[in-house]
């Protein structure tokens, strides 16, 4: 039973435009939501996070929005750059205990020059 869903496996956008990556979850006990970027043959790299008590967090070109009532979050990248081309994972943190991350299957973003 998937707790975290990234329903679109891929997204292609033009350089300079906005990229919107979506993530839905089922577990209301998640307390932090992290986004990771992964290039081929490398480990995931932390990108941005948001606490469950906030609805928006911005860091440069990256903004994450959280809608707790809908159990939905999205990552906005604007303007998109070719170097942003990677697989993006939504990874909420399970509160308490090991505080493990629960990963979605990822979305492959391609930014075309």
């Amino acid at each position: 039973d998937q707790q975290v869903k990234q329903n679109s496996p891929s997204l292609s956008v033009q350089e300079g435009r906005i990229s919107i990556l979506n993530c839905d979850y089922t577990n209301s006990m998640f307390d932090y939501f992290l986004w990771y970027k992964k290039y081929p043959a490398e480990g995931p790299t932390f990108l941005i996070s948001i606490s469950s008590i906030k609805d928006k967090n911005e860091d440069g070109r990256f903004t994450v929005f959280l809608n707790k009532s809908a159990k939905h979050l999205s990552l906005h990248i604007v303007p998109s750059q070719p170097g942003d081309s990677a697989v993006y994972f939504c990874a909420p943190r399970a509160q308490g205990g090991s505080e493990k991350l629960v990963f979605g299957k990822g979305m492959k973003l391609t930014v075309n020059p």
Partner: protein
Amino acid sequence: GAGVSQSPSNKVTEKGKDVELRCDPISGHTALYWYRQSLGQGLEFLIYFQGNSAPDKSGLPSDRFSAERTGGSVSTLTIQRTQQEDSAVYLCASRRGTAETQYFGPGTRLLVL
């Protein structure tokens, strides 16, 4: 080093053999995680170490899998009598204290023939 390191980067083994995968976390990080990523899937939690506490082994898929963390630093993941379904990328992550961000190593790509 500055980041999480893992060795070997690639491992090819025959079905039935044992393998050991090593992780060196970021210095000073008390929490250490092992995850694995099978083809086309998200990362799957395996095991968690935090200081001297008993590890959370709830993600280990079978008793062929075990892990140790010696001296609160280096960790070894051992897979006994490997099976073809064990083929995956095994990723190690570490976290500082109570911080929410986990930092990942580059992974070990295991192929069981």
